[in-house]
């Protein structure tokens, strides 16, 4: 499953499928981007980050892609599991001041068993 356009509040996928969550960032001066996962009733949790000198970065079952030309970020989750159900936020900042994160509005990922 994939969220399309600039922002889709909810993405529903079948367990085992791949998920793609998209994010458009606003500040062309931002050069450092992070994805956070927030489960219900909990605070956001760091997933993966990427700097603007990279187009792609892989983690465990997750891949982040960065397209600076169109100011677009995506998070790919392979073999989506029920435990991946959460709200996913992208955040942008300048790497010289990583303390000032600007969060996007978030996408809810629902995984159907």
């Amino acid at each position: 499953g994939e969220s399309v356009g600039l922002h889709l509040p909810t993405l529903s996928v079948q367990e085992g499928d791949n998920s793609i969550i998209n994010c458009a960032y606003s500040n062309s001066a931002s050069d450092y981007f992070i994805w956070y996962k927030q489960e219900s009733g909990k605070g956001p949790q760091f997933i993966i980050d990427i700097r603007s000198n990279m187009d792609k970065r892989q983690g465990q079952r997750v891949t982040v892609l960065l397209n600076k030309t169109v100011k677009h970020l995506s998070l790919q989750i392979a073999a989506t599991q029920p435990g991946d159900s959460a709200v996913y936020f992208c955040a942008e900042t300048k790497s010289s001041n990583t303390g000032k994160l600007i969060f996007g509005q978030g996408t809810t990922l629902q995984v159907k068993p």
Partner: protein
Amino acid sequence: EAGVVQSPRYKIIEKKQPVAFWCNPISGHNTLYWYRQNLGQGPELLIRYENEEAVDDSQLPKDRFSAERLKGVDSTLKIQPAELGDSAVYLCASSQETGWGRGELFFGEGSRLTVL
């Protein structure tokens, strides 16, 4: 190792009443943040501390909000008087480094405020 601890988890008050939230960051983390998260939105930074110093409070509504971080460890965030629009989750986070460091913030579970 304990994570970021916040209290209370839930608070219901009537408008115009005061309220305070407390945060204990991860041991050794010099940077502490207070964020506000409205329903269905991403967190928004209210204030950031480097040790005891508030280095970014540009988004803190200073007419009714105040924060302190005595001794560079625990922090409190106060609202007085509370308004209906203050209903939100107040998140505390800490990190080891900012500047050119990794932007991994460790968040607490938040304090959910409801103003009636």
